[in-house]
């Protein structure tokens, strides 16, 4: 892209040459897909428009770069003291100053126009086909299909072993979840976003959507994707220790498939409700509890329950965990204000909380022998 003749070789022109060299040095190895140089392939019209706008601006910048730095390069080569060049004396020219003030104004106007109309269409969340409420939690997303009684959590599903290097990393390392957001292809999906704790940002690059999820406030955004497929993104706003482990995965499916998926979800919710009063055994609860623990608790309290001294308390041998059941249940349900301990009452079902409390009370060195049932949780919720 930048290609200046070699005769200008001279230490003076180092900066441009350096960049060119850097780019040129990288280009031969670009055959590997890992060297992505540009925005990802757009999947929505908005993302396509953003892509095109970015390309346009890049070309304009390149032209300006040449207009400014070719003369500088010439000066650095030709007007050198070592070449015996005598300095001129001029130091002012009103006309030139006016010209190089006005031209940039015009260029900026030219840049701002397409950007402005794109802003307006990005902000237009009307005429949606369906609305999904997205809630950020430390460190997972909750999706709620408004009007359809479907609500679930989406956790990262990359195993800890892969992160710590004891297992080879999978293809979608850090960009995979247990339950993706499922949306119909070709429909305008409106997202209303909020957060239950700190600020997060929901981002799928291929859609051109990035929106902060702000606790106590609702913001909205939208996308329409025609091509079915799996699209991946991540939380974009620093939200604590788990920030790097908070992926977003969206499955775009044909509308018919979406309808049958919805039915399935509603049926699953009914089964779960029917199980609410069931009584479970210790082994069953501990097995489920371990899963809930590693998805929700292990990031701070650590898989071995040791916590991180000073930042996150240990659960192994903790007074709360080995003390009275109800105190333990309450802190899980309601959290602890002004700390990172969130309230899980709204995030997890009675069964999940019963399982994780049972697991914590009977793991590591904690041997209370208590079996906590979903009904116990329901009782503490009041």
């Amino acid at each position: 892209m930048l290609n200046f003749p070699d005769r200008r070789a001279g230490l003076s022109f180092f900066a441009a040459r350096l960049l060119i060299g850097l780019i040129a040095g990288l280009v031969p190895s670009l055959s590997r897909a890992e060297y992505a140089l540009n925005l990802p392939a757009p999947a929505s019209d908005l993302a396509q428009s953003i892509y095109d706008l970015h390309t346009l601006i890049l070309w304009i910048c390149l032209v300006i770069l040449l207009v400014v730095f070719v003369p500088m390069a010439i000066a650095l080569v030709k007007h050198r003291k070592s070449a015996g060049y005598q300095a001129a004396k001029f130091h002012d020219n009103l006309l030139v100053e006016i010209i190089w003030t006005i031209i940039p104004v015009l260029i900026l106007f030219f840049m701002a126009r397409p950007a402005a109309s794109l802003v307006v269409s990005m902000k237009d969340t009307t005429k949606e086909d369906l609305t999904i409420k997205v809630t950020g939690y430390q460190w997972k997303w909750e999706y709620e299909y408004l009007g359809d009684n479907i609500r679930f959590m989406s956790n990262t599903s990359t195993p800890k072993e892969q992160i710590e290097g004891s297992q080879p990393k999978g293809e979608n390392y850090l960009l995979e979840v247990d339950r993706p957001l499922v949306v119909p292809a070709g429909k305008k999906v409106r997202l209303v976003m909020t957060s239950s704790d700190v600020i997060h940002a929901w981002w799928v690059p291929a859609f051109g959507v990035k929106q902060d999820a702000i606790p106590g406030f609702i913001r909205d955004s939208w996308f329409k994707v025609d091509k079915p497929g799996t699209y991946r993104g991540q939380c974009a706003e620093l939200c604590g220790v788990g920030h790097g482990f908070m992926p977003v995965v969206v499955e775009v499916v044909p509308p018919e498939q979406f309808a049958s998926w919805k039915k399935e979800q509603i049926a699953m919710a009914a089964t779960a409700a029917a199980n609410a009063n069931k009584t479970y055994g210790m082994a069953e609860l501990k097995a489920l509890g371990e899963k809930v623990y590693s998805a929700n608790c292990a990031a701070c309290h650590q898989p071995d329950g040791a916590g991180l001294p000073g930042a996150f308390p240990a659960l192994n041998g903790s007074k709360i965990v080995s003390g009275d059941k109800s105190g333990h249940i309450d802190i899980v349900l309601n959290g602890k204000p002004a700390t990172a301990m969130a309230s899980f009452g709204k995030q997890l079902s009675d069964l999940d909380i019963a399982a994780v409390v049972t697991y914590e009370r009977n793991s590591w060195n904690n041997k209370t022998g208590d079996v906590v049932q979903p009904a116990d949780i329901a009782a503490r919720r009041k």
Partner: protein
Amino acid sequence: MNTTTINGAAAHHDHDHDHAPAGIMRWLTSTNHKDIGTLYLWFSLFMFFFAGALAMVIRAELFQPGLQLLQPNVFNQLTTMHGLIMIFGAIMPALVGFANWQVPLMIGASDMAFPRLNNWSFWLLPAAGTLLIASFFVPGGAIAGGWTMYPPLFMQGGIAYDMSILAVHILGISSIMGAINIITTILNMRAPGMTLMKMPLFVWTWLITAYLLVAVMPVLACAITMLLTDRHFGTHFFDAAGGGDPIMFQHIFWFFGHPEVYIMILPSFGIVSTVIPTFARKPLFGYVSMVYAVASIAFLSFIVWAHHMFTTGMPVAGQLFFMYATMLIAIPTGIKVFNWVATLWRGSISFETPMLFSLAFVFLFTIGGFSGLVLALVPVDIQLQDTYYVVAHFHYVLFSGSAMSIMAGVYYWLPKWTGHMYDEKLGKLHFWLTTIAFNVTFFPMHFLGLAGMPRRIPDYSLQFTDFNKIASLGGFLLGASQLLFLYVVIKCVRGGEPAGNRPWDGADSLEWTQTSPPPYHSFVTPPLVK
């Protein structure tokens, strides 16, 4: 660095009637602008290495995907403290150090207007620096929510968060006092005949910067005080549950934060505008328009803050206003770049180390300006906000902008400050290593950001591996190269070829009429400027 005086031999200079205490008391009690400038510069260099070392650890962790060296909470502490210390501990004190040394010398004043205030401004810094460094060792570790300290995340930390609030308060007080001192000195103590429009451009940029500091440091102080009361005294400024608004913090913070960006770059413009005419042997082109450009940038810096917040979800009108206002900054900035190029045009150019750094500054800062323009466009910013593209952008304006202009200034004025020439060969080597390593480190980050890598993550998905490896290798070289800088500076302080009054034949401001090093009290009789 003033070896003559370090050795207690200040009396060699006939001008010196001062009986300054020797040894440590000289530095603790000094009210001399040169000593205080030296203290600022050494403090800044120490902090530069400390925060740089944090960056080395960050790059080591990011060398490959997976968690190898650090737990995520430690990683977040390192990124947060790297940013906070580089900004408040390295860049700002270095520029104030330049102001201390150079402003009185360049306007023909004998010292700063308030010498005791000056001493106090400096000696607050080590206190704040100690608090910041000590915060790594308290239970829970240092602050880990990003240098921008956004609530509600900021509410979740331990004692280190309060220590950092206190440290930033102290740094703010120091900056405000330093700024008042600089404003008073420039407005009242110029040599007879030096009208405002005859001041060297470096002095102009610092005058305007000092006004920015006075205007926005109190705003930062308010923001962090509100954080403190939210944390401990039951207020709910930023807590929606109590009727507050977390986004309000971002508005207040960036109302400080954007002018802060210019606080770190305007004096750099001043340094580069001093160095380029010297080595082009030709007066600065468009002096008057340069002054107006700096003033307009300073004004615009107050009305663009929300471009840091496009993804928070502002109304259309808000997004458009801040987009247009941000794009306007390109105009005065462009004028400055054009003027530098016009200064070079038909000059008689030579390439000493300060000039190399200044030329690199013009080119690389412009790259940072272009990426700034890309980020100003709301739709593109939505894609790039909080990605490595932003990390690339602000390192192009803060490292190849501020930090490299500071290096240019150090090489330019070291002969004046120490009386010795620095080692030109090593200086050039330092320059080339720094520039190459800088680009290898940060240029690939543009690609990482475009491809979708969020910033502030301790681990990343596999498609980002290769560019991260390159960036890490570049980063290690960049860090190591700065040891050479330290060596060159120490070598120059300890000795070297005598510099003479005016080692640069193209330099014409007042400091070059003084001996090198200048007498402990320079311009006891003010010079007459025609």
